[in-house]
C-alpha cells in the first residue's frame, strides 16, 4: 500500500468514525446511572425500565409501527406500478408531468410537503367532509406520497437492468402477460421490492416534519413524541430508546443482508 492509498483509507476511517461515534456514545450513555450526559455514574439499566413504563412512548411506538407497515405496503405497491410505467411505457400523455411528480418528492423539503398536504386535507374536509380531522389515515396518506418515490427509484433501477428477453422468452413459451409478470418479472425484481418496502418503512417511522403537520391530538407517532421530549433537553430515556432502535435495525440489516446476498447469488447479480 502506498502513501496515497494510506491517506485515502485514513480519510475513510475518519468518515466512519464521524458517522458512528454519535451512535456509539448514545448506546454507552443509555447504560449510565447518572442523568447527566457527561458524568459516568456507573452501569445501570434503569432508563430502560423507565422507558418500559412510559405509556406515551409505548403507544406512540405502536402507532408508528402500524403506520409504517401500512405505508410501506401501499408505497411499495404504488411505487412499483410507477416504476413499471416509467420503464415500460415509453410514450403516453403526461409522461413528463408524471416523471416530475415521481422524482420531486426525493428532494422536496419535507416542510413544504407537510404544509401542502395539511392544506389539502383541511380543504377536502371543508368540501366533502373527509378526512374527518387528522388521524392515522392522513399520516399514512402523507407518508405514502413521499415514500413511494423512493420505492420507485429502487425498483426502477432493477427493472431497467432486467433482461427484457426473459419476459419475451416466457411469452414465447406460451405464458400470457399476467402470468409473465407474476411468474417471471415479479420474482426477478423481488429483492428491489423488499429493499423498497424496508426503505419506505424506515422513512415512515423516522419522519418528524410531515407527521407534525398531518397528525392530530389523538394520533401522535413516535418521532413527534421524541421530538417534543428532545426539545426540552437531553433525556437518558431517549438514549435507551435509541439503543433499542439501533439493536433492532442491526438485527434486521444482518438478516436482510444475508437474504439479499443469497438472492443476488441465485439470480446471478
Amino acid at each position: 500500500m502506498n502513501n496515497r492509498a494510506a491517506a485515502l483509507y485514513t480519510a475513510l476511517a475518519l468518515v466512519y468514525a464521524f458517522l458512528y461515534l454519535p451512535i456509539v456514545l448514545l448506546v454507552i450513555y443509555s447504560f449510565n446511572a447518572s442523568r447527566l450526559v457527561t458524568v459516568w455514574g456507573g452501569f445501570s439499566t434503569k432508563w430502560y425500565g423507565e422507558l418500559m413504563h412510559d405509556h406515551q412512548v409505548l403507544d406512540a411506538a405502536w402507532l408508528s409501527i402500524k403506520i409504517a407497515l401500512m405505508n410501506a405496503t401501499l408505497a411499495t405497491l404504488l411505487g412499483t406500478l410507477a416504476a413499471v410505467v416509467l420503464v415500460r411505457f415509453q410514450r403516453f400523455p403526461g409522461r413528463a408531468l408524471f416523471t416530475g411528480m415521481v422524482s420531486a418528492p426525493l428532494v422536496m423539503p419535507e416542510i413544504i410537503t407537510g404544509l401542502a398536504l395539511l392544506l389539502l386535507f383541511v380543504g377536502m374536509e371543508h368540501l366533502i367532509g373527509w378526512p374527518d380531522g387528522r388521524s392515522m389515515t392522513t399520516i399514512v396518506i402523507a407518508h405514502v406520497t413521499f415514500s413511494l418515490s423512493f420505492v420507485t427509484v429502487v425498483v426502477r433501477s432493477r427493472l431497467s437492468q432486467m433482461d427484457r428477453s426473459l419476459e419475451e422468452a416466457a411469452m414465447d413459451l406460451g405464458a400470457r402477460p399476467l402470468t409473465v409478470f407474476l411468474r417471471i418479472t415479479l420474482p426477478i425484481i423481488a429483492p428491489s421490492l423488499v429493499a423498497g418496502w424496508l426503505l419506505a418503512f424506515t422513512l415512515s417511522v423516522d419522519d418528524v416534519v410531515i407527521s407534525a403537520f398531518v397528525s392530530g391530538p389523538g394520533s401522535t407517532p413516535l418521532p413527534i413524541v421524541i421530538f417534543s421530549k428532545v426539545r426540552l433537553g437531553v433525556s437518558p430515556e431517549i438514549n435507551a430508546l435509541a439503543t433499542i432502535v439501533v439493536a433492532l435495525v442491526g438485527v434486521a440489516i444482518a438478516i436482510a443482508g444475508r437474504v439479499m446476498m443469497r438472492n443476488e447469488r441465485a439470480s446471478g447479480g
Partner: protein
Amino acid sequence: MADNAVKRNAPTPWTDGASAPLIHFEGISKRFGDFVAVDHVDLAIYPGEFFSLLGASGCGKTTLLRMLAGFETPTGGRILIDGVDMTGIPPYERPVNMMFQSYALFPHMSVEDNIAFGLKQDGLAKAVIRDKVARSLDLVQMSRFAGRKPHQLSGGQRQRVALARCLAKEPKVVLLDEPLAALDKKLREQTQLELVNIQDRVGITFVMVTHDQGEAMTMSSRIGLMNAGRIEQVGSPVEIYEYPGSRFVADFIGAANMFEGTVKGGGGRLAIACPELAHDLEVAHADPLPAGSAVTVMVRPEKMMISRDKPEAGLNWAEGVVADIAYLGDVSIYHVRLTSGRKVQALQTNLRHTEEQRLTWDDAVHLSWHPANALVLTR
C-alpha cells in the same frame, strides 16, 4: 463445372415445385418511425429446413425473426405459418419457440423448471411434463444438471438448456437468434455440427439469425442474405458462395477479386476487356450478353493459381509482383500488385513443411485461372 451445376443436384422441397412452404413471408415490411428495418420481404421456408438469415448488424434480420415470433408487429404484409395467417396472433399463441441470444434462462428457476415452463403453460399433466422434460434434457445431454440453477452452469451448458427449452414444446418452428455468439471459438465450431445433428434428429424446422458467414455456411440448408432490409439472395451455401447473384453478395461472402469490364462478344464464353488487366478475359457464362455491356468479373482468391512460371495456354492470366504475404499456417494469402497497380489476392494451400521455392516479397509472379472458375456479375 457450369453455372447450372446446382440444378443437377437431388430435388429439394424448394426446387421440386410441389412442396408447400411452412413459413411464408408475404411482402413483409417494418418501419420504426422513418427507419425502414425490413422492406417488402417475400420468402418461403420449407418443412425440415435449417434456414439462416445472414447479414451485417442492422440489416433487418433480427427484426424479421422477431416478427415471426410475434414480438414485433409488421407495418405491412403478412406472415403465414403452416397456412395460417399470424396477423394479430400474440407470441404466446404461435407455434414457434425462440432461442435468445442471451439464452434468457429464468434465473430463479432450476434447469428442469426452465424446460417445464412452456409445457406448464399448455396445462399438460404432471407426468407428461416430467417425461418431456427428461427427453429434452437427454437430447442435449444435460440430464445430470436438471436441478442446477442457470448461474451454476457454463456458457455452453446454458446454451444447451436454452435449446432444450425450445424443443420441449415440439413447436413447428424453432427460431435461433445468434445462438452461438456467446460461446468461444472452439466450442462454437463444435456446437455448430451438434446443433445440426439435433435438428436432423427432431426434424423440426430451424430458422437462425447470424452475422457469422462461416456459421451460416456450416449449418444451413439454405441462406437468405439480407442487406438494408431486403433479401439479396436466397440459396444453398454452395450457390451463395460459388454463384453470388450480385456484387454485394460476392463481396459479403468470402473474399473476392472483382474486375470492372466490358463485354466484347462471344456466346457460352464471353470475351471481356478489363482496363486493369493487360489481356482480355474469357469467362464461362450461359446467358448471352450484348457486346458493350458493362459487367464485373469475380474470381475467388483460392481459384487463382500463383507461380513464377508462365501459365499454360487457355487460362486467363495476369502478371505482377508479390506486395504482401499473409501466412496463416494452413494457407497463405498473397497480395499481388499487377502491372496496372491494381492489387489482387491469391490463396495457396501450404502443402509441405518447407518449400524451397516459396514465394517471397517482390517476386515477379503469374496469376492464372480457368474461364469456368470466374463469374460474370451484372448487378
